[in-house]
């Protein structure tokens, strides 16, 4: 009636996969792949997250409304990260833009 009962065998299988992925990600960190090190580490972390969410957190057996809320949550997180990065990484990091400093010196001498 209430929740879906996931077999113990599934839980143990997910646990074994998570441990294997932890060993894999730790091992790969000691191999020089250049920029791919970060990509591989994050891809493994996302895979582990999906296994936990789908099976341990029963989302595989949850109704569509719950899934929509979760997807919306991650979508908002993506907006937070993407727009913050787009702003911070495209400023050029000059102290004060030239025309502004001229304007400031005109408005407030000294």
């Amino acid at each position, binding site marked *: *009636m*209430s*929740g879906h*009962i*996931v077999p*113990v065998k599934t*839980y*143990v299988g*997910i*646990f074994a996969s*998570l*441990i294997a992925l*932890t060993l894999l*990600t*730790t091992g790969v*960190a*000691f*191999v*020089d792949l250049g920029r791919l*090190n*970060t990509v591989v*580490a*994050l891809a*493994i*972390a996302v895979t*582990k*997250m999906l296994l*936990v*969410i789908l*099976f*341990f*957190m*029963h989302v595989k057996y*949850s*109704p569509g*409304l*719950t899934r929509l*809320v*979760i997807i*919306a*949550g*991650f979508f*908002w*997180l993506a907006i*937070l*990260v993407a727009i*913050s*990065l787009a702003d*911070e*990484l495209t400023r050029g990091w000059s102290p004060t833009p030239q025309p502004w400093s001229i304007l400031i010196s005109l408005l407030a001498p000294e």
Partner: protein
Amino acid sequence: MADAAAPHPSGHAAAHPPGFAHQFEDMGQQHEAGSLGMWVFLVTEIMFFGGLFATYTIYRALYLPSFEIGSRLLNVKFGAVNTVILIGSSLTMALAIHAAQTGKRQATVVYLILTMILGAAFLFLKFNFEWTADYHEHVVPGFGFFVRPEWGAAGPHVPMFFCFYFFMTGLHALHMIIGFSILGVLTWMAHRGRFTPEYYAPLEISGLYWHFVDIVWIFLFPLLYLIGGRYALRGGG
């Protein structure tokens, strides 16, 4: 409307399972509503930790050499062992819910206690060994942080990495302590026989929280310990 104001007919308690709240159609709807409500809370938690993850990403991009030096100073063994411990605690939490779903009261209590032991082991390793070692290596900002000359131009921003490290793992540890306390209450409730195969909502919802805290660590481990060019240390120590 007249029905709502009317007193309950006598003996209504026998008509529904324990733990059933009247505003729901049935236990299935109550279960779905409870999980959905918890997920809405967890989405706010995603945004809460997300702010830290976003800031970490920006400053890592701006001061990459300093962040890589900081990451290589962390002990990957502590991080990896704690990851395994936390994944193990997620398994025992899931098994505790399974035991409640199948009406095994004793097994529920045992799995909940195992989850608490693993959670305590994680915190013990982190506070008693890892943070203590960090303190003795002078890498705690505000507590005698020592900027080593060999870090060169990247040196001044290494404390920033450690600020992220202590805030992120500290906030995670705070969530673990809250989860540990919740597990204590659940163990008592399970011992008193409060859960049945029809009603185990507190277990299910606390389980969602515990697994969420596990997921946060699943990201903290590679971001803090692994992606700082650790391969450069091979053979070097």
